[in-house]
């Protein structure tokens, strides 16, 4: 894949540090290859590397007419937001209508201006993340968002990624979100597509939450059924900062949401909650790695899943507590409903605790719908199918309740 395409021309090849970073991505990809059955972090959701050869990278500029669905703000969300739009993996906005204290630049511009240099590729090791290495080799598309010190956003920033039907395409998308001290923002990433589109979104977000800053991050991978979506969200949280993420995954070939979170300083906190529901086929994967690197750090995770047909759900949750990270708390809970014999759920909690004064717990349950609950509803006249739907909704709703923003909660609950 890399060898086939490395002669494509990307913007900024004459910028030495950018060239160096891309080259490092390329070399890492060559060295480690793509994940296979032996790659622990991809044990349950790897796929044949040759599949990548079916996608091409589109280096042409963004073109779409005014009727393009992704330009219609009303089609996105029922509430007001600051819109950033991607169409077929290309940034489609020319202007951003933003309040004071917030800057959004295309990644190209942020690289050109030098803003991105201190952040790009700084929050994780490429060697650990094969698709992020590949993403780095091709980085060009994306945005850099900076919320200045003390700025509190009055409405969410919505990144809406839309894919049209066309030749199967791979989009390497790279964003940087920086929340300076005591700033507060909500970022929604919403992925949609024409129903018959075939594509691969390979996304990397690098997020920097500075002192006492708060980020609510919502992701809805509402991709086309034939889509693949692999995302790495790498987050650094400093003193008293908060990073809260909620990820919703709908039916597609592969949806992977990987969170790599470093709680670097005292008082840093993170949550990763999510839901997945695949009733026919495909793989849904929520993988987390949360490192408590300082005392008094807290993390919470609640993931609720539903699989039917021949679908597979994966939850891998790693909590690492460093030796001096005393008085930390790390909680993790994954519950899945398996509604058919051919459906599968793989769950792998991993707790590495090197401090002695900590509170940690993890839990996993997988099972069918409760027969007693179903009978209770039927005995009140509710037909079996409706009773099942009610129980599935109830199962998922427990995770939706973790969403702090009421607009987002209502929108997701209604449309998921």
């Amino acid at each position, binding site marked *: 894949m890399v060898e086939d395409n490395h002669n494509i021309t990307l913007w900024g090849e004459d910028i030495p540090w950018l060239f160096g970073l891309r080259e490092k991505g390329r070399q890492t990809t060559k060295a480690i290859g793509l994940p296979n059955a032996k790659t622990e972090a991809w044990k349950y959701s790897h796929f044949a590397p040759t599949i990548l050869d079916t996608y091409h990278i589109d280096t042409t500029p963004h073109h779409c007419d005014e009727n393009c669905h992704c330009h219609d703000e009303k089609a996105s969300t029922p509430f007001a937001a600051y819109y950033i739009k991607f169409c077929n993996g290309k940034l489609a906005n020319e202007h951003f209508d933003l309040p004071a204290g917030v800057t959004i630049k295309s990644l190209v511009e942020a690289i050109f201006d030098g803003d991105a240099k201190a952040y790009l590729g700084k929050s994780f090791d490429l060697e650990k993340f094969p698709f992020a290495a590949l993403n780095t080799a091709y980085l060009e598309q994306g945005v850099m968002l900076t919320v200045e010190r003390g700025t509190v956003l009055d409405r969410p920033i919505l990144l809406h990624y839309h894919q049209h039907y066309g030749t199967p395409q791979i989009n390497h998308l790279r964003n940087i979100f920086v929340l300076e001290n005591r700033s507060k923002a909500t970022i929604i990433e919403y992925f949609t597509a024409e129903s018959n589109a075939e594509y691969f979104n390979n996304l990397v977000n690098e997020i920097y939450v500075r002192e006492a800053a708060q980020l609510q991050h919502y992701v809805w991978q509402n991709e086309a059924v034939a889509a693949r979506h692999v995302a790495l969200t790498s987050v650094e949280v400093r003193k008293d900062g908060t990073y809260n993420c909620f990820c919703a995954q709908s039916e597609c070939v592969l949806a992977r949401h990987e969170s790599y979170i470093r709680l670097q300083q005292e008082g840093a906190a993170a949550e990763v909650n999510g839901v997945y529901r695949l009733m026919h086929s495909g793989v849904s994967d929520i993988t987390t790695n949360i490192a408590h690197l300082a005392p008094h750090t807290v993390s919470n995770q609640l993931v609720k899943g539903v699989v039917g047909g021949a679908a597979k759900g994966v939850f891998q949750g790693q909590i690492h507590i460093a030796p001096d990270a005393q008085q930390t708390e790390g909680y993790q809970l994954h519950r899945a409903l398996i509604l058919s014999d051919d459906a599968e759920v793989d769950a792998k909690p991993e707790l590495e605790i090197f401090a002695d004064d900590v509170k940690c717990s993890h839990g996993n349950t997988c099972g069918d719908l409760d027969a007693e609950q179903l009978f209770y*509803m039927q*005995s009140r*006249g*509710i*037909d*079996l199918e409706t009773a099942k739907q009610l*129980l599935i*909704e109830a199962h998922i709703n427990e995770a939706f309740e973790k969403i702090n923003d009421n607009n987002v909660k209502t929108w997701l609950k209604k449309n998921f």
Partner: protein
Amino acid sequence: MVLLKIENLTAGVAQKEIIKNFSLTINAGEVHAIMGPNGAGKSTLSYVLAGKSDYEVTSGKAWLNGQDLLQMKPEERANAGLFLSMQYPVAIPGVSVSNFLKHAVNAKRKYAGLPELDAAEFLKLLRSAAKELGISAEMLKREINVGFSGGEKKRMEILQMSLLKPQLAILDEADSGLDIDALRVVAEGVNKLRTADNALLIITHHNDLLDLIKPDFVHIYADGHIVRSGDANLALELEQSGYKSFLEEV
């Protein structure tokens, strides 16, 4: 008018016969009590009548309003007028009382060919029914039976009964776990719902509830069937002599 007719019913669970050759007829306007010792299979009888799938009927027949009860799905039985107030109502985390009951009420309306109630109409109905039973509006927002006390659960069962207006209500140990005040609330709730067109089947192993809801017929149940039937005085007799003397008659 015959509401429920059971003829020589034999049923059980996992190949084990629990109900043996059981017969009973209940007419509109009547209150029947089935009394029996713990473990006699009284709850099994209620589950078999409500259609719980774990239980298998091996022989016998049952009709609800002339319809073949045993051929009906549990939800059809409910919509056709059968209601089972359970001894241990199950908690359903994530489903609110009001959402649950809205589905139940509308299912019954749909079955009867009536238009479904919208959210506002239903809420009005629910609130007024809840008020009658001293159930707060706050409680209706809670997840059904989750963290409810014994009394709250039983009151919730009676609330459901009052909304669904069954023709035949089976109260399975409706008094278990209740103090005397809670018992009174439940009994008053049930008594208010009594009409000449509906009937009650009270399953219990002691007299407390029967002091408050007067039965027309009392049946002593042992070894899977009725061993003796009588009027309300039979319950009093039972209270004095205990089950032992009746069981010896078997």
